[in-house]
């Protein structure tokens, strides 16, 4: 038990240490031109959240499109939606990211100068779009078919029927699953470390290696993942509450 105090002290000290030399900062924050491990960790957290957020936006936009396409009467559109979903769902995210990073820029030379961050966000976004498309499709299909017919019978165009009749309800049905999808995207963003994004897993392995304090670094990162997951959960619950259909008790 008495080993705990010095271990905690050493952990605190290493977090306040400079990443370049042996200086230990009493405030844990270095001035200009230097970085403590704590600051590096916070930067890494920022990268994790940034990649997840951009990827989520991409995934929501494309996933909505794919989900709608899969419910359209047009066979070609539906088939395209199916193919998209199967393609991005059946290849591991790690392999997809490595392809975005190593193969695609070589095939399309115009993409050679695109930063890794963009590739990571696009890769993660498209991967997640397949899952979101799946849920959007399921959401639309849970509505009684009569709603679609009613919209069309009233003289709405197909686009208007989706916009004003189907999607407002379907998207609310889908919202709870989007909560877990946002949590998934934070977790999946960890895979981006494989294409040199300096997010938290990258930090954990790198800082652990440099300081030989693996447990400290892993613990710090794990705690931040917990905090992220918890925060997303609360945020999503709030969004869900505010977007409830007026009058529905659910």
């Amino acid at each position, binding site marked *: 038990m008495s080993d705990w105090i010095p271990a905690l002290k050493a952990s605190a000290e290493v977090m306040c240490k400079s990443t370049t030399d042996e200086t230990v900062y009493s405030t844990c924050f270095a001035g200009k031109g230097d970085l403590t491990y704590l600051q590096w960790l916070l930067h890494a957290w920022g990268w994790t959240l940034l990649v997840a957020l951009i990827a989520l936006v991409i995934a929501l936009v494309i996933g909505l499109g794919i989900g709608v396409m899969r419910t359209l009467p047009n066979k070609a559109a539906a088939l395209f939606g199916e193919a998209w979903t199967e393609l991005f769902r059946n290849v591991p995210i790690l392999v997809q990211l490595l392809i975005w990073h190593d193969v695609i820029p070589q095939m399309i030379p115009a993409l050679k100068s695109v930063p890794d961050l963009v590739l990571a966000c696009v890769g993660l976004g498209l991967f997640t779009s397949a899952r979101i498309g799946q849920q959007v499709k399921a959401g639309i299909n849970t509505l009684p078919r009569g709603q679609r017919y009613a919209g069309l019978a009233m003289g709405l165009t197909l686009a208007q029927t989706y916009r004003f009749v189907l999607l407002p309800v379907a998207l609310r049905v889908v919202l709870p699953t989007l909560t877990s999808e946002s949590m998934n995207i934070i977790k999946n963003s960890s895979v981006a470390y494989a294409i040199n994004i300096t997010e938290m897993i990258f930090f954990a*392995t790198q800082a652990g290696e440099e300081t030989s304090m693996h447990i400290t670094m892993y613990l710090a990162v794990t705690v931040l993942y917990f905090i992220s997951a918890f925060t997303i959960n609360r945020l999503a619950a709030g969004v869900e509450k505010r977007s409830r259909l007026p009058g529905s008790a659910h």
Partner: protein
Amino acid sequence: MALTLDYSFLTPDVVRNNIVPGLIYSLELTFVAMAIGVFIGTLVALMRLSSVKAFQRFATVYVDALRSIPLLMVILWFYLLIPPGFYAAIAGQFGLDHRAEFSAVITFSIFEAAYYSEIMRAGIQSVSRGQVNAGYAMGMTYAQCMKLIVLPQAFRNMLPVLLTQTIVLFQDTSLVYAIGAYDFLKGFLTVGQIYNRPAEMLLPAAASYFILCFGLSMLVRRLQAKIQIIR
């Protein structure tokens, strides 16, 4: 280095020596983790649904904790924390030489149990309460009720979901990349390194995963249709 898309170096021998062992390991990892994961997962689900507060709390913490952190982090944790002596104890020198591979099996079993337990919980809850009460009324114990009435139906109702989760698990085994275990993906990457074609080898890797996972998910879909008719 430009992409040549010339795969003439990929002879059957190269595939047999480098990629097949990786595939075998990935499949072993998937099946062992599924078997142990479903077993532990079922126990955790029963704990979660039990009336003993301490069991409930343990199960909730187990599931929520593992589901809030990325699998990669869990893989790294287990690899860091399991002492070498453990591998030596279970498999001697072979264990010591394959630390990453063994550690991944343990990690995936425990990690996937959290996901399987949520599926099993839904499965157990899909069996109507009246059946359990009928079992008790006939003088069955809790264990008999679960074993003879609830779990067989829970398994059958949830079989498609369990299998779909297993396909996800198979894809996730590629994450052992982080600790350098020799899996299916590593097989492709190794060939890429040997023949200095790292980028090219990613395409057959993706195609192989796609064919396997897509094919299996088609089978699961058929199974699902069959089960639906029976019900």
